[in-house]
């Protein structure tokens, strides 16, 4: 039996560093960074091929964070794996930083695509998978999209094109945290059963608990064995790991007063204690 203790520990560290950097800076997209932390932990702990000393190693697997505003979770994961110093996380969003709010492949070691205009990243990821197919390579391209982001037309074009062009080695992870900037996805424009829809479009599609690292890992393993592109719905909670903001209004992005009102210092102390006891 594979032991997921290290993955769980890594996910917790990602949450701590992500909250800390945004709190210290005074602004950030906290909710979506916390909902995707477990999937990112699985990718960098258990699945992806990469080399922190050579981030552009051509044998690596690629990750496109299409919901680019959740860069902080990914920056934490990359720093913890040695792509750059953990202390650098505190430079987020300061002038001249290598860590902008939204992911930028030209600034940050380990970031594979510039994203932030929702819908475009996942199309770019498909393009990377097409390019690798033309070159006869088997690197895997992963892309993380949001459920709110899935309202963008380009997401649906990607869902149509990838199976039609018989693209393998391409796995989309949809962070179904059920909230978007303006409120709950179901109140704004519900997406329905995304797993079924992806399957109907020709994907190998699964739906799992997005906070269960073993389930996420198993789902990715199954996708890798399929001849179809993979689509994994991650059922998650926006703000996961910070009880006061889990599923709460206004947890998409916030500034210092909200951090203080929701007890950022206390939650960091509590998460660090939990980590020490793991």
């Amino acid at each position: 039996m594979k032991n997921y203790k290290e993955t769980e520990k890594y996910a917790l560290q990602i949450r701590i560093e992500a909250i800390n950097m945004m709190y210290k800076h005074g602004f950030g997209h906290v909710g979506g960074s916390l909902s995707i932390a477990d999937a990112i932990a699985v990718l960098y702990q258990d699945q992806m091929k990469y080399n922190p000393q050579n981030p552009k190693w051509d044998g690596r697997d690629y990750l496109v964070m299409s919901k680019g505003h959740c860069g902080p979770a990914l920056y934490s994961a990359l720093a913890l794996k040695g792509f750059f110093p953990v202390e650098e996380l505190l430079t987020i969003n300061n002038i001249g930083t290598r860590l902008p709010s939204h992911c930028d492949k030209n600034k940050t070691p380990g970031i594979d695509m510039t994203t932030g205009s929702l819908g475009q990243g996942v199309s770019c990821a498909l393009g990377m998978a097409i390019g690798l197919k033309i070159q006869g390579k088997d690197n895997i391209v992963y892309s993380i999209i949001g459920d709110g982001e899935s309202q963008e037309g380009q997401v649906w074009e990607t869902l149509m094109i990838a199976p039609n062009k018989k693209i393998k080695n391409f796995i989309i992870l949809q962070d179904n945290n059920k909230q978007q900037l303006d409120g709950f996805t179901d109140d704004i424009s519900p997406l329905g059963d995304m797993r079924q829809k992806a399957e109907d479009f020709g994907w190998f599609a699964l739906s799992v608990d997005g906070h269960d690292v073993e389930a996420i890992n198993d789902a990715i393993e199954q996708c890798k064995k399929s001849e179809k592109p993979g689509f994994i719905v991650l059922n998650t909670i926006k703000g996961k790991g910070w009880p006061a903001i889990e599923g709460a209004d206004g947890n998409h992005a916030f500034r210092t007063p909200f951090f203080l009102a929701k007890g950022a210092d206390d939650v960091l102390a509590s998460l660090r204690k939990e980590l020490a006891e793991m």
Partner: protein
Amino acid sequence: MAKIIKEKIEDIELTRAFRDEMIELARTNPAIAAVEADVGNCAYGPNFKKEFPDRYYDLGICEQSMSSIAAGMSAVGMIPFAHSFAVFASRRMCDQNYISCAYAQNNVKIVASAPGISSGENGGTHHANEDIALMRPITNIKIMEPADSTAMKWAVKNAAENFGIYYIRAERLKADKIYEDDTDFALGKANIIRDGSDVTLIAEGSLMLGTCLKSADILEKEGISARVVDIFTIKPIDTDMLVKCANETGAFVTAENHSITGGLAAAVTEALCDQGCGVPVKRIGIPNRFGEVGQVPDLQKVMHMMPEDVADAAHQAILLKK
């Protein structure tokens, strides 16, 4: 130096020249790939597909995705040429060209066919009269409008060999050949096609270059010596040539198959302004109005883009000289 053909020879379509050169390059460079959004057949896409089926991706009708997908392909080392009608390659793909391609510093070559009124019978929905205006402010983008097949082949080769985002306009009209096959071009360098001393007619594209050459004939009969310049590259623009023409002729007419706002006229006047060249510039192109359905020669009349219109503008520019 540009070598100008003296005799009249009918050229091939510029979309054909684009595709022929792409095929030629793809034979030795495995990174060259074609992406299309269901108008590949209008730009000789099947010729490429026949020889390189694994490198030809017709994605279906999804121009915005095409731009982003091309960006992603380039991020893993491919050199994609993404073609569509200019109206889609610019207005429809604007944000993707900006973010996925340019801002992300990817390596995509956008080929925009049937720009301006050259999409004639498809009507106003298909007339890209603002594409240069939309693309020109994008940081580091290269914008070219080759005026004949020789220039087009050089443009495609230059785009393939140099990293960055290119926007290449490709008229589908048949026109006269301008340049000898062995002409050597340079990015950001305009060419004098016909010399003159009283006024400079600056053209972009085959349609308006041909129009300006006819206009120069009209003016010659009136005793006016008109210089005709093929701008070739709209961004970067050839500031040295503009200053030279300002000093030597003292008046300009810009002639473009595009709105007179934001395109060639804007690029020329911005450059002259930066250099402190206070010379009159009259603008020929699509005025402040939408396109409409019609055949190209009729649209050229309706839009006041005929040789006679250019000649009238030249008269006015000359009168405005200090």
